[in-house]
């Protein structure tokens, strides 16, 4: 088991290194002068100087790469050309909000999706199946920025049930308030996060529903299910005790893999809902061509992805005894 863990760790490190190198390669091997590509031909001399120095373009490629890696290892992801603050600080300040939104989206919609998937599988090829599939497909087929604005127009403007933008109190404060018997902050928190989480989560839901459905159908064909049924277990029982746990492993693995697209989806969702997370910063930076922030954001997301998947692997280890025994 230690060997397994070590291998996974090494794998994670390699992937992070690979992502960093890929980003470096894209910038430095793209046709044309990287400085010109980023700030345009007609930037002032000062701007060019700033960019050249910041990217290390006056150094030979080999040194540039080493300097880049060295900086990354020491935690220096550059300074924003626009805001003047270190990118890591800027991103770190906003990261909790993005994580919060992403977690809520995942934690609410993944289980919902699993439920829909189970329904779909159990009542295969009935209207329930088609209905669930339709709901799921809806999530993956609509551009999420359209969906976001429509939700705002419906729930905030027409019905006035929910606020139109922004975030409520921090979840930590809201939970703390609960202990003093004050439910208002928690309700406020929930009201603000519902719409953005729904926008973000529908995409995930679509994928997880299909996955669950397919996986359950797969498992239902397996020999051990037949054995269990032969032993007298009810269909529901089989699904609950045997099939579902196995499928959950697939789901958890899958959600881990989809962290990337969730974070990507957060970029748009945060802009629509004025949610103060990392995604919004990315959008502003892209518009302003604030390259250090863009680069840092991509690397940070990659790091989070690898980290989450490492966690998933550990959970996997705990769930699936076969691996533990290797």
């Amino acid at each position, binding site marked *: 088991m230690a060997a397994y863990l070590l291998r996974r760790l090494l794998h994670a490190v390699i992937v992070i290194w690979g992502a960093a190198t890929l980003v470096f390669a894209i910038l430095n091997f793209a046709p044309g002068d990287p400085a010109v590509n980023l700030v345009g*031909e*007609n*930037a002032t001399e000062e701007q060019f100087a700033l960019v050249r120095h910041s990217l290390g373009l006056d150094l030979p490629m080999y040194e540039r790469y080493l300097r880049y890696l060295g900086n990354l290892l020491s935690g220096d992801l550059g300074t924003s050309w626009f*805001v003047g603050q270190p990118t890591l600080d800027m991103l770190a300040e906003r990261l909790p909000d993005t994580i919060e939104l992403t977690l809520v989206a995942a934690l609410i919609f993944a289980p919902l999706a699993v439920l829909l998937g189970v329904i779909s599988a159990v009542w295969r090829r009935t209207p329930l199946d088609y209905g669930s599939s339709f709901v799921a497909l809806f999530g993956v087929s609509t551009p999420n920025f359209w969906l976001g*604005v429509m939700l705002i*127009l419906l729930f905030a403007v027409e019905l006035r049930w929910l606020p139109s933008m922004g975030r409520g109190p921090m979840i930590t404060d809201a939970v703390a308030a609960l202990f003093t018997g004050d439910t208002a902050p928690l309700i406020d928190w929930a009201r603000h996060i519902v719409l953005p989480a729904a926008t973000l989560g529908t995409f995930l839901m679509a994928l997880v529903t299909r996955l669950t459905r397919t996986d359950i159908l797969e498992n239902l064909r397996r020999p051990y299910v037949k054995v269990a049924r032969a032993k007298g277990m009810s269909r529901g029982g089989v699904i609950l005790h045997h099939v579902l746990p196995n499928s959950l492993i697939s789901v958890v693995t899958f959600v881990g893999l989809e962290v990337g697209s969730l974070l990507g989806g957060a970029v748009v969702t945060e*802009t629509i809902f004025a949610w103060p997370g990392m995604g919004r910063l990315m959008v502003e930076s892209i518009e302003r061509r604030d390259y250090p922030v863009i680069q840092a954001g991509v690397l940070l997301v990659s790091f989070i992805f690898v980290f989450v998947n490492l966690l998933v692997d550990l959970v996997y280890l705990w769930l699936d005894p076969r691996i533990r025994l290797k």
Partner: protein
Amino acid sequence: MTDKTKRPLSPSRRDVLKYGAATGAMATAYGLPGLSARRAGAAAKEFDEFKVAFWSGTPNLDPEQQNIRTCLIAEKWLFDPLVWRDKDTNAPMPYLAEDFSFIGNNTWRFHIREGGKFHNGETLDAHAVKFSLDRRTAEATGSPFRKSFSSVIEGKVIDQYTFDFVCNSPFPMLPAYMPTFYIMPPGYYGSTPKQELALKPVGSGPFRLLEFKPDDILRVERNDDYWGQMPMIKRVTAPVIQEDATRVASLLAGDLHIAPRPVIEDFDRINENAGTKVSTSIGNRIVLAGLNYDMEPMNDRRVRQALNYAVDAALLNEVYLKGTGEVMASALPSTVPGFHPGLTPYGYDPDKARALLKEAGYANGFETTIEVNPGWLIAGTAVTEAIANFLKEVGIKAELQVRDAGTLASRITSRKAGPIYMLSWGVNSTFDADSYIGSLLDEGAFSCNRMPEIGKLVEAGRQTADQNERVEIYRKACEIAHEEAPWIFMYLQPNTYGVTTNHDWTARPDEMIPLYYVKSV
């Protein structure tokens, strides 16, 4: 979130006295009529929380590190300038300076009011003004306003509350530049690192900083020691909402008091909605399609005039601005002294356009490019596409190129943009002709044309302090510009806002959103 404006606080007796005293003092200082009568009305409701949305990011609140409009608006809440603009007449009015005048010898003298204090306790006097001026003009600061103050040789402290701007010329534009010259406390700004100054502004303004998350949200609270008119607002919350539809939705849902720059198509909806309405005012921002003289065939006056006849600016104004803009005949809008009322805008005459093109040798039209940054003008993409369409009808095939702000700006300043490029010009609301003509024509920084006669007029305009003389000079410039057609003249853009009907703030010509005089109704 609960809408606190619907349950206003009833003021205590002490508050009434405090406000009453403040307005009384202001009445004597400003000589504004009727304020003592309003003392009774000061018992009116105040806002617990007033919400204004920014339509684009606010990265930095140091007045000398950027000149972004949203930041300028926010800074006005926290800082005070020497001179401000009256909300109804738009004329310069005394603010931190009780009075100011040109005393000859290229010198402007300002008398600063006594008793003012900064949020951190430092005294507000001529020394603070000197510090602020030095900080602005120092090369090390890198202020984007530095160039506009290049005519100022030095600032002299005459006594604790008298300050002189000694210039190398009459510098008649100085009062016009004052509203964006915020006064800073020397102790704090002299000793704090630049990065922190961007995040933690300290001024003397009607509000003080509560919380600032760059590009996200700004919260300020009332400065209860304010020397001037005490705001009827306890706290201001200013989130950044870039998404147009969300901003309007927030206004309609009751989550905002002021939503700037609503999409024109939403005007009807905002007006029909109970509790909200649209407030517009024409102001300082002109929209034009610049023509680059260095790129054929824009060097031919006939072609340039043809373009003006081909594009129906009045229709564009009707359609995309719902008629709230003002079509322009020449380089200056009607809100700026120097405007020539006798000039008529180029009308819509595609036949004349084609005739001129034929005369210039382009009977079959030609191909060209229009560069645009859509965020620079209202309905930027739509208007540019419409212009391209007009040009198509006279045989000119125009390709659109969307650029980001930084790139297009540097292309214009290096005369590489075009042959046609869209530009809007608001100049930090100086309302001074020199800021338009001086920068956009001939050798100006944002000019891609050449008109030596105008260059001479600009120089003349800078050398005299007589405002009447200047008006004559700029009128002449407008005449020449109209004939020469260095741009496709378009219109003066309105400043548009969606507002709730429970307060009395209305759109100002200078694009600013000061909140110290807002009252609930």
